[in-house]
């Protein structure tokens, strides 16, 4: 499992785990749903205009087995696409701890980025909610800048309640800085 790989530090507490908003996965899975329905839509059209088949001297009854075979094959491939979308959605993750932000970005099956940002290095966090649906459903993008030289920005879109997330990170950051101020040697932990 993931946490065995990340290896949290001693006494490190997970404050929040965030995945993309449910609307993001729903919109993506809708395409799979349409793909699944496509052969049935074609059959429906054929049934609606039975005379068009008789022009070609074709009878659907002769093709039942081939139709079932094709629909099954098409459905399997569509479902594989759906499960790929689900895997990308579920394994894409933000883990906010009292010390770090761990970003797991599952871009593809063979493309996975894991970034770790220490809270004391964070400088600025901004969020953006853009559009009618994101406004009503309260999801958007979160941008953060760190004090590092390269790769100092990170951005994630489609996150639920970005305002609340920003507040959580800001609070965790403040708490972390307070802890470090009291005990400066704590940067290693």
């Amino acid at each position, binding site marked *: *499992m993931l946490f065995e790989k990340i290896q949290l530090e001693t006494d490190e507490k997970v404050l929040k785990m965030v995945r993309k908003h449910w609307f993001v996965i729903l919109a993506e899975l809708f395409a799979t749903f349409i793909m699944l329905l496509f052969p049935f839509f074609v059959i429906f059209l054929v049934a609606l205009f039975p005379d068009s088949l008789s022009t070609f001297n074709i009878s659907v009854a002769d093709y039942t087995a081939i139709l079932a*075979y094709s629909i099954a094959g098409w459905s*399997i491939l569509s479902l594989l696409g759906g499960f790929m979308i689900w*895997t990308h959605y*579920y*394994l894409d993750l933000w883990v906010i701890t009292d010390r770090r932000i761990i970003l797991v970005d599952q871009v593809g099956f063979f493309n996975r980025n894991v970034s770790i940002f220490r809270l004391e290095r964070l400088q600025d966090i901004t969020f953006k909610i853009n559009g009618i649906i994101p406004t009503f459903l309260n999801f958007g993008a979160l941008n953060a800048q760190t004090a590092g030289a390269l790769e100092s920005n990170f951005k994630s879109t489609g996150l639920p309640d970005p305002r609340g997330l920003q507040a959580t990170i800001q609070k965790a950051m403040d708490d972390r800085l307070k802890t470090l101020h009291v005990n400066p040697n704590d940067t290693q932990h």
Partner: protein
Amino acid sequence: MMDVSTFSNLGIPLSLVTQLGFYFVLGIYAVFTAILYYHWQSYGTDAKVTSLTYIVYLATTVPLLIVMGLMVLII
């Protein structure tokens, strides 16, 4: 009526085409299943969600594969 026993005008039996198609889908399915299993085992965060994903995956895809296999036998 059109002759459905041969594929196109090439003279390839339809049963062979469907059989090859079935093996092709079966190959893709096997590789995809292995990749899916690896990802969920390695990067999953919740054992319940992982198990549920496996169950739904198998429950939706295996019957379709069986239907495909049966149709290959019929055709």
